[in-house]
């Protein structure tokens, strides 16, 4: 049924990003059909190409990391040694032929390379450029250095996440990266809509610190309103009980359950085989359940421990109760529902073969949104892009190659 072109078909993105935040931003644009051209270098290989997982049956190598291959699907790759002025000239030609430029170097790096917004705008007046940096392009901390994992504590998320009475916790992933990357994609798309009506491009300054704080308003406003931050309270919720992740039968198996209101509690009590709990004074109302929450959780855990998380999930969902296994990476990869929805992508890759990857997290009824090709090998598209996009002759490309500009 998806017969129409993709939303961004015909749109070109010059992608100077690396690690995760920037690549996650341009992944969305690739999903939407943009031609995304990664500018990389063999002299300083993207961090994610050098991180595991590598396939068990193949030797490690920069084209074989599952991390890189997940978040760079649908993109192309060229190599340019941007420390060389001749390479910067090539990059400028690429930008001049692009609608969007995305970068996530430390603040000011693009300017120093001669690829700042003012330079690019002079080459192409309606260009949309976004910088995703840790602290933003302005302000007294703009030159501070930031790694993805550090954004979680910096944003305040760690101070309110954790088990009761335990230290601050992380998220388990570098959460500021996808949050920043998605916000970046929203900003680029909005700027493109503006450009479609006005002809005007623009520069977008995204601070990962700031985009990470926009997703914890309840904690921040609790402070600005009342001068108190929410305490670290494990998996509990002020407005739902029981609410948590409970031990299930099996080796380190767990199931998440949320009882959204008193009616759900009554249904849950029937699932437990103890319908009388619905009217029990200790548990009948949310206020009562919150007051007796330790006791309540013991009761839930005694029941969940006796069955697999999948069995608990099926029983509770049949009763209209929110529940699901605390899925491992294996559970997600083998989730029959996700499979039935066509969520996974299995495209041939020249070095790792066909592997399961995560696909596009939305569906469109008319536009053709999908992963169009596996992640690129380092520099795989250099010749084609230089010839077809940047309009260099074969002789010029050979010359650039010989002088190691295309490294």
């Amino acid at each position, binding site marked *: 049924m998806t017969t*129409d072109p993709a939303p961004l078909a015909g749109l070109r993105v010059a992608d100077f990003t690396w690690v995760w935040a920037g690549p996650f931003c341009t992944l969305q644009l690739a999903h*939407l059909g943009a031609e995304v051209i990664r500018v990389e270098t063999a002299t300083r290989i993207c961090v994610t190409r050098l991180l*595991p997982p*590598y*396939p*068990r049956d193949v030797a490690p190598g920069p084209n074989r990391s*599952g991390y890189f*291959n*997940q978040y760079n699907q649908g993109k192309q790759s060229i190599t340019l040694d941007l420390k060389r002025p001749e390479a910067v000239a090539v990059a400028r030609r690429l930008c001049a032929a692009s609608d969007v430029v995305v970068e996530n170097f430390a603040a000011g790096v693009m300017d120093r390379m001669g690829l700042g917004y003012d330079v690019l705008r002079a080459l192409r007046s309606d260009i949309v450029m*976004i910088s995703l940096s840790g*602290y933003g392009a302005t*302000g*007294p901390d703009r030159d501070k*250095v930031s*790694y993805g994992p*550090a954004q979680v504590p910096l944003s*305040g998320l760690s*101070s309110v*996440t954790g088990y009761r009475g335990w230290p601050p916790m*992380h998220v*388990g992933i570098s959460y500021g990266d*996808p*949050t920043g990357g998605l*916000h970046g994609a*929203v900003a680029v798309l*909005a700027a493109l*809509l503006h450009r*479609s009506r006005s002809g005007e491009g*623009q*520069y*977008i*300054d*995204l601070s990962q610190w*700031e985009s990470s*704080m926009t997703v*914890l308003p*309840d904690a*921040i406003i609790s*402070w*600005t309103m009342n001068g108190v*931050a929410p305490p670290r309270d494990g*998996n509990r919720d002020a407005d739902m009980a029981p609410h*948590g*992740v409970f031990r299930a039968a099996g080796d*380190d198996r*767990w199931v*998440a359950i949320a009882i*959204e209101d008193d009616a759900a509690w009554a249904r849950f009590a029937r699932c437990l085989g103890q319908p009388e709990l619905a009217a029990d004074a200790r548990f009948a109302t949310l206020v009562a359940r919150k007051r007796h929450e330790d006791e309540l959780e013991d009761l839930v855990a005694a029941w969940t421990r006796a069955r697999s998380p999948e069995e608990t999930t099926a029983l509770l969902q049949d009763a209209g109760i929110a*529940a*699901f296994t605390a*899925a*491992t*990476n294996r559970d*997600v*990869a083998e989730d029959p*529902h996700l499979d039935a*929805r066509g969520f996974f992508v299995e495209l041939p890759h020249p070095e*790792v073969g066909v592997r*399961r990857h995560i696909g596009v997290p939305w569906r469109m009824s008319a*536009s053709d949104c999908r992963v169009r090709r596996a992640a690129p090998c380092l520099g795989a598209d250099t010749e084609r892009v230089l010839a077809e996009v940047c309009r260099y002759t074969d002789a010029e490309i050979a010359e650039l190659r010989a002088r190691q500009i295309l490294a």
Partner: protein
Amino acid sequence: MASALDGLRVLEVGELVSAPYATKLLADLGADVVKIEPPAGDRARRRGPFPGGMPHPEKSGLFLYLNTNKRGIVLDLTTPAGHAALERLAERADLLVHNVHPRDMAASGLDYERLSARNPRLVVTSIAPFGLSGPHAGWRGTDVVTWSAGGVAALNGVPGEPDLPPLKTFGDQSGFQAALTAAVGSLGALLARIKRGRGEHVEVSTQECVATILELTFEYWPYTQLVASRLGQKPIQPLCFMECRDGWIFLCAIEEHQWERFVEIMGNPEWAGLELFTNRLARGANFDALQAFLQEWCRDQSVQELYEAAQRRRIPFAPVSTMGDLVASPHLRARGFFVTVDHPVAGTVTMPGAPYKLAATPWLLRRPAPCLGQHTAEVLAEAGLP
């Protein structure tokens, strides 16, 4: 100055975080967003924080944040009159975003074919915990459930503490991820409409949005058949929380040059020269010993001084910011990050502002969140409804 989405007409039938944050992103960039609430109001109105902890439907900090720059109307979408009004409004709209559960969509008048027949240019974006198709489409999910179903909860825990359960992150993070993805999909469909002239139906599964952010862990299964565990130690260190005399800091010195400079900051202690700590992999393998030495030293430090000292040497440490630290940050103040909204009932509320700065079409605060039904008469009159 113009806004990026000036003139874009958006309807929202949303509760709590996902649909409301998706349309807030658009409203803050200039879209005319009309929020449709049931007579009892968005459930976010009943979640805090509230001033003094006293619940009040017009004073929820979460609601006030998620609904700035929108107008608000009340329609009872369980009635034929409500459906008729929704259809009339949808005839004039560019985009409708909702997070009504799939089981309740038809009864709420949210049928894409029907709305599209009345307005072929309309884009409709549906957000559901498990999407609109597939064997689990009718299943229910709040944040702890979808965060677990997408696989992130299972990654968060304490090595050596198998009795601590997989830990959810603070707040409705699945809702925010679904909102961001819904905004991306919606804007994509609006861009596609420029050439095609027709809208379409965009569908977002919260579970999928969470599975999309598993970083390097998802591929461990297809690439190596290994199950990622919250109980595993990090392979490289230091990348850890430490308690200082006045708060917590996050140590991040995983490159060798960063570690060497951190050792200098610590005054080159003898233990740092032990073979146990000779490189980042060794420091990961011997983290128990490393942690004890680091904790002993950090206990006497000040968070801010250590953070600044590390940053001067290009080591990416970060404070474990408290809410108070954020609001007091000179950097965030210089950038104008926090904004103060003046609301007719709740008074002034300071909240997070722009997640990005668009130079030509700035993020702009134009109006506070609507009181329940504040714009019902105005919006219905614009649509020619009584």
